[in-house]
C-alpha cells in the first residue's frame, strides 16, 4: 500500500494536448463540469440497471409488434382510420414506463439515499438539498427521454395511419410530458416525507396507490381526447381553460412541493422556510391575477371567483397546516435579521401570521371579484360562503395551536400532533353540532347551532337566500360573529406562539 502520494498535495496542473479531438473532448469535459453531478452519476448508474434494459427492450418489442399489426391491417384495406387506436396503444406502452416505472424508481433512488446515509455525504459536499433534488428529478427525466426516443417514432407513425391529427398528438404529448415531470417531482419529494422505517413503508404504499390511480386517470383523459374528439367532444374554449388551469396547477404545485421538500431536508440553522413560503405567496398572487384575467375575458362570470374562492381556500387551509405547525422560533444565526413581520422566516408564529393573511386575503379578493361580477344575484351568499370558509380555517387552526402549544408540558406541541389536533377539532366541529341538533329536536343544518361548523356553516352561508322568507337565515351579521370568534382565537394563538418563540430563544 502506498502512502507516498498525498491527496493533500493538490497539484492542479493539466496536460493539454493540441489537436481537434482534444479540443472537442475538452469542450465536452467543460460542458460536463457544468452539469449537476447527480445527473451524470444517476444516468450512468441507471443505464447499468437491469430494469432499464428490460423496460426498454419490452417497450420497443411491444411497439414493434403493434406496428406490424397496424401494417398488416393497412394492407388489408385501402383506407383506415385506425391511427387514434394505435396512437393510444403506443401511448399506453409509454405511459406504463413514464407514469409508473420512472416516478417509482425516482422515489426509490432518493429513499435509498436517505436509508443508506449517502444523503448526508451528499449534503456535506456543499451540493445542498435544492441541487440534490433537482439532480434526482433531472436524471430520471433524462431516462424518461431515452424511453420516449424509443416510442417517439411509433407515435408519429400512428399519424400516418389516419384518424388522428397532429395538434391532438402534440397536445397529448405536451400534457403527458408535464404530467411526467410533476409525477417524478412528487415521487422524489415523497421520499423526503418519512424518517422512520414504518413511515417509509407507508409512504411507499401510498405512492404506489397514487401512481396506480393516476395512471388510469391519465389513460382515461388520453382516451377521451384521442378517441372521442369529433363525437361530442371538441377543443373549445372551456377545454382550453381547463387545460390551462390544470397546467398551472401542475407547475405551481410542483414548485411548491419541490420547495417544501427542499425545506424538509435543510438544517434548522438555514432559512428553510423562505423558499416554500415565497412559492406559496407567488402561487396565490399569480393565481389571483390569472383568475382575474380569465374572469374579465369571460365577461365577468361570477362562477370563476366563486369556484376558485372555495378551491383556493381549501388549498390554503391545507398549506397552512404545514406553515403554522412549524417548530417555535429560529436558530441563533437567523435571529438577528428577524423582525416581528418577517413572515418568511422559520417559526410557527410567522407561519401562522402568513396563513391568516393569505386565507383572509384570498377570500377578500375573490369576494370583491364576485361583487363586481355582472351576474351578481347570488354573489353575496357565495362571497359570504368563501369568507366563512377562510374564517373557519383560521379558527380551527388557532384552536389546534392553542390546544397543542398552550400547555407548558409540550406533550402535543410537535408539528404532527398539532396537525392531528386540527383534524380532530375539525371533525368534532363538523360532526357534533348536527348530532346535538338531533338531540335538541332541531333541523340538522340549524343555522345557529352550526354557526361554527366548518362544513355546514360554509354551506349554510352559501345557501342564504333573501328572496325566500322560509329559507335559511344567515345574514351578514352572523358572519361578523364568526369573524369575531375566529379573530379572537387567532389573537390568542398568536400570543401563545409569540411567548413560545420568546422562551425558545431564551434557551
Amino acid at each position: 500500500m502506498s502512502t507516498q502520494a498525498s491527496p493533500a498535495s493538490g497539484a492542479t496542473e493539466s496536460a493539454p494536448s493540441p489537436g481537434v479531438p482534444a479540443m472537442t473532448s475538452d469542450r465536452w469535459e467543460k460542458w460536463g463540469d457544468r452539469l449537476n453531478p447527480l445527473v451524470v452519476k444517476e444516468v450512468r448508474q441507471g443505464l447499468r440497471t437491469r430494469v432499464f434494459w428490460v423496460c426498454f427492450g419490452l417497450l420497443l418489442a411491444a411497439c414493434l409488434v403493434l406496428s406490424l399489426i397496424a401494417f398488416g391491417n393497412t394492407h388489408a384495406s385501402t383506407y383506415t382510420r385506425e391511427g387514434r387506436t394505435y396512437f393510444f396503444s403506443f401511448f399506453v406502452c409509454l405511459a406504463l414506463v413514464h407514469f409508473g416505472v420512472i416516478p417509482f424508481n425516482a422515489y426509490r433512488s432518493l429513499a435509498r439515499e436517505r436509508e443508506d446515509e449517502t444523503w448526508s455525504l451528499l449534503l456535506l459536499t456543499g451540493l445542498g438539498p435544492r441541487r440534490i433534488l433537482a439532480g434526482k428529478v433531472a436524471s430520471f427525466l433524462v431516462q424518461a427521454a431515452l424511453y420516449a426516443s424509443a416510442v417517439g417514432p411509433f407515435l408519429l407513425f400512428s399519424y400516418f395511419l389516419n384518424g388522428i391529427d397532429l395538434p391532438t398528438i402534440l397536445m397529448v404529448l405536451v400534457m403527458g410530458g408535464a404530467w411526467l415531470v410533476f409525477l417524478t417531482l412528487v415521487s422524489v419529494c415523497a421520499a423526503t416525507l418519512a424518517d422512520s422505517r414504518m413511515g417509509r413503508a407507508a409512504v411507499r404504499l401510498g405512492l404506489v396507490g397514487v401512481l396506480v390511480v393516476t395512471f388510469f386517470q391519465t389513460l382515461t383523459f388520453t382516451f377521451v381526447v384521442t378517441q372521442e374528439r369529433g363525437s361530442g367532444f371538441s377543443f373549445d374554449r372551456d377545454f382550453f381553460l381547463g387545460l390551462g388551469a390544470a397546467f398551472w396547477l401542475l407547475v405551481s404545485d410542483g414548485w411548491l412541493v419541490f420547495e417544501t421538500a427542499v425545506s424538509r431536508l435543510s438544517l434548522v440553522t438555514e432559512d428553510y422556510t423562505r423558499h416554500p413560503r415565497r412559492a406559496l405567496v407567488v402561487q396565490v398572487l399569480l393565481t389571483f391575477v390569472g383568475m382575474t384575467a380569465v374572469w374579465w375575458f369571460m365577461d365577468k362570470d361570477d362562477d370563476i371567483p366563486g369556484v376558485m374562492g372555495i378551491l383556493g381556500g381549501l388549498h390554503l387551509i391545507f398549506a397552512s397546516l404545514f406553515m403554522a405547525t412549524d417548530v417555535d422560533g429560529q436558530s441563533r444565526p437567523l435571529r438577528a435579521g428577524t423582525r416581528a413581520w418577517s413572515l418568511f422566516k422559520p417559526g410557527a408564529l410567522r407561519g401562522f401570521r402568513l396563513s391568516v393573511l393569505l386565507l383572509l386575503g384570498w377570500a377578500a379578493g375573490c369576494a370583491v371579484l364576485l361583487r363586481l361580477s355582472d351576474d351578481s344575484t347570488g354573489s353575496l351568499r357565495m362571497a359570504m360562503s368563501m369568507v366563512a370558509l377562510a374564517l373557519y380555517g383560521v379558527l380551527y387552526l388557532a384552536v389546534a395551536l392553542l390546544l397543542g402549544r398552550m400547555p407548558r408540558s409540550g406533550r402535543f406541541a410537535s408539528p404532527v400532533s398539532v396537525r392531528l389536533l386540527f383534524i380532530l377539532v375539525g371533525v368534532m366541529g363538523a360532526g357534533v353540532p348536527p348530532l346535538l341538533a338531533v338531540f335538541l329536536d332541531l333541523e340538522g343544518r340549524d343555522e345557529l347551532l352550526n354557526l361554527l361548523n366548518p362544513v355546514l356553516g360554509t354551506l349554510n352561508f352559501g345557501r342564504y337566500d333573501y328572496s325566500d322568507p322560509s329559507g335559511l337565515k344567515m345574514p351578514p351579521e352572523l358572519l361578523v360573529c364568526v369573524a369575531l370568534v375566529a379573530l379572537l382565537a387567532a389573537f390568542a394563538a398568536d400570543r401563545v406562539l409569540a411567548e413560545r418563540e420568546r422562551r425558545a430563544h431564551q434557551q
Partner: protein
Amino acid sequence: MSLLEVKGLRRDYGALRAVDDVSFNLEAGGILGFIGPNGAGKSTTLRILATLDVPTAGTVLLDGTSLVDAPDRARPLLGYMPDRYGTYDDVTVREFLDFFARAYGLKGAQRKQRVDSVMEFTGLGPLAEKLTTELSKGMRQRVALGRTLLHDPRLLLLDEPADGLDPRARIELRELLRALADQGKAVIISSHILTELAEICDSCVIIEQGRLLAQGKVEDLLRQSAGPSRVTELTVRLAAAGDEGEALWARTERTLLEQPRVKDVAREGGALRVRLELEADAGPAQAEAAAAVLLAALVAQGLPVCAFSPRERNLEDAFMTVTQGRVA
C-alpha cells in the same frame, strides 16, 4: 490555537439529553479517540461536528469558524465517514470518487488528478474499474476513506471505521490514518474497539450517557485509571490439563493468594490474572522485584509454570475503571 474547539456541547431530543456539556480541543495532526458504549452519544457528537445536526447549546469552532452559525463555510474543512460506508450500486470505484469530486466542485484536470492521487494513496488504483459492490469490506472502507479525502479536509471524522474489518484491513487502516495525521490532518475516531484505538490515538475522550467522563493523552488516562496505589497485573499460565490439571490450577491460586502483595487472582480463559498491590511511589524496579518473588514461590512449590508475564494496563481497563464497569 486548537484546530477544533468544542465547548459546552449539549444535544436534547425532547426529554432525552443525548450529549451533555461535552468540551474538548484537538490540535492539527492529532488523532483523538472517542470512546463510549453504544448509545453514549458518540455518533450524535460526530454528527454535530459534521454539521449534520445542530446542538441545543454550546459552541464548536473549526479553525475559528463556527460549525453552528456558518456550516457552509466549515464543511469544506471537514471530511466525515459514517459507520455505514455509503457506496452506490452499479458504480465503479473511479466513477464513485469522480462523482464526489464533481460534487465537491473539482473540475476538469484538477478533478482527475485528485481522484488519481486519492486512489494511489488508499491503494485503490488496481481496483479503479471494479464495481463497488464487488469489493471486500476492507476495500469498501478504503473507498469511503478516499471519498472523505477528495477535497483535502483539515479535520477527519470517522465513525467506527474499524468495525467489521479483518485484522489485516485494520492494520492497513491504522497505517493510513497515521500517514494522514503526519500530513497535519486532525482525526477523530469513534470506536468501541478500544485496543485498536490505543494503538492509533494520541489522546482519548471517554463519554458515557452523553457526559464526558475523562479526557487526555492515552498514557495519562492509563495512569489516572490505575488509581493512587500502583497496581501491577501479571498473567500466569500452567502446563496442566484434565482433572489433575484442575487440581494444579487450584493449588497455584492458593499459593498466589498466600503471597503478601497479591490482591486478587482470577481465572481468565487459560490463564490466571494476578493483581499485585505495590506502594504508591513504587517504580518499575519494585514491580519487577515483586514479580520475581512470586515466580520463585511458584517454582518452589513445584508448579508447572510455562508462562509468567506482566500484564500492561490498556485502554479497556481505563475505560472500565472510568465508567465503573457500566457498559450499555
